[in-house]
């Protein structure tokens, strides 16, 4: 077993294990911090997929943005909210674990099954890519290529996303404005 595979497994284990902890912890604050770990591990996994820029973005946007937002939202909400969030009792469960868990496991099974099935027949575009040797290699400079692609081929989506992002931010700030009526 080579080192990268070992590292991959380490990251994968870290990601899945932390994710499991995230969903199983009662304490939301801890869960959110564990969410950090998940996101880092995910970023590490992106690296193994040769998506270094995506990994950086992941860390920047998620860890620097989303997670901070979540933490702030969590911490900024008042004490009652904090209590409520921590005192979720079982009686309020609408979908108890026994109901969800089989479904999830079943779904997981289907997916694994699907993956195994799919392994037998690699899609045509992938085989041609392998044949034409148009597969990203670890030596390629992805960031350069991505910059070109954003500004040329994907300029329209890029702009739309930008506007959408702005709208979202404005909307969010509008929504979270205090004392809307006062």
């Amino acid at each position, binding site marked *: 077993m080579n080192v*990268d595979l070992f590292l991959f497994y380490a990251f*994968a284990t870290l*990601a*899945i294990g932390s*994710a499991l902890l*995230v*969903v199983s912890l009662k304490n*939301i604050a801890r869960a*959110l911090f564990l969410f950090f770990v*998940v*996101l880092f591990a*995910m970023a590490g*996994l*992106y690296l193994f*997929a040769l*998506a270094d*820029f*995506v990994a950086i*973005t*992941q860390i920047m*946007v*998620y860890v620097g*943005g*989303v997670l901070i*937002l*979540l933490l702030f*939202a*969590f911490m900024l*909400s008042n004490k009652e*909210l904090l209590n*409520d*969030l921590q005192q*979720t009792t079982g009686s*309020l*469960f609408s979908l108890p674990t026994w109901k*969800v*868990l089989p479904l*999830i496991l079943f779904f*997981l099974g289907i*997916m694994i099954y699907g*993956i195994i099935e799919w*392994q037998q027949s690699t899609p045509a*575009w992938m085989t041609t890519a392998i044949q034409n040797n*148009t597969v*990203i290699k670890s030596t390629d400079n*992805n960031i350069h*290529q*991505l910059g070109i*692609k*954003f500004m040329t*081929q994907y300029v329209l989506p890029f702009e739309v*996303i930008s506007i*959408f*992002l702005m709208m*979202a931010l404005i*909307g*969010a700030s*509008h*929504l*979270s404005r205090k004392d809307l009526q006062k």
Partner: protein
Amino acid sequence: MITLTHFLVVSAFIFCIGLYAVLAKKNAIMILVGIELMINAAILNFVAFGKYDKINYGGQIFALFAIVLAAAAVAVGLAIILNVYRYYKTVNPDQIRELKD
């Protein structure tokens, strides 16, 4: 050798965990976290497949789009949650039943 299947399996796990959070958690924030997990799983798939698309870089491009959109979604979602909390004094989605007849 890290094959595509490795990524797919890991993403499947993460996706399922996220799905579990969405379906089973009693807390809107954790639901949001679950959504983020699912999106991350999707992104992992994007980048894993994107490896075979050097011409268009579709996988990575859309992974980036997804990250951005997720961030936007989180921002809006949190805003909504805060408002909901203000309105209902709870963040438990079970007790928010305005959709019911």
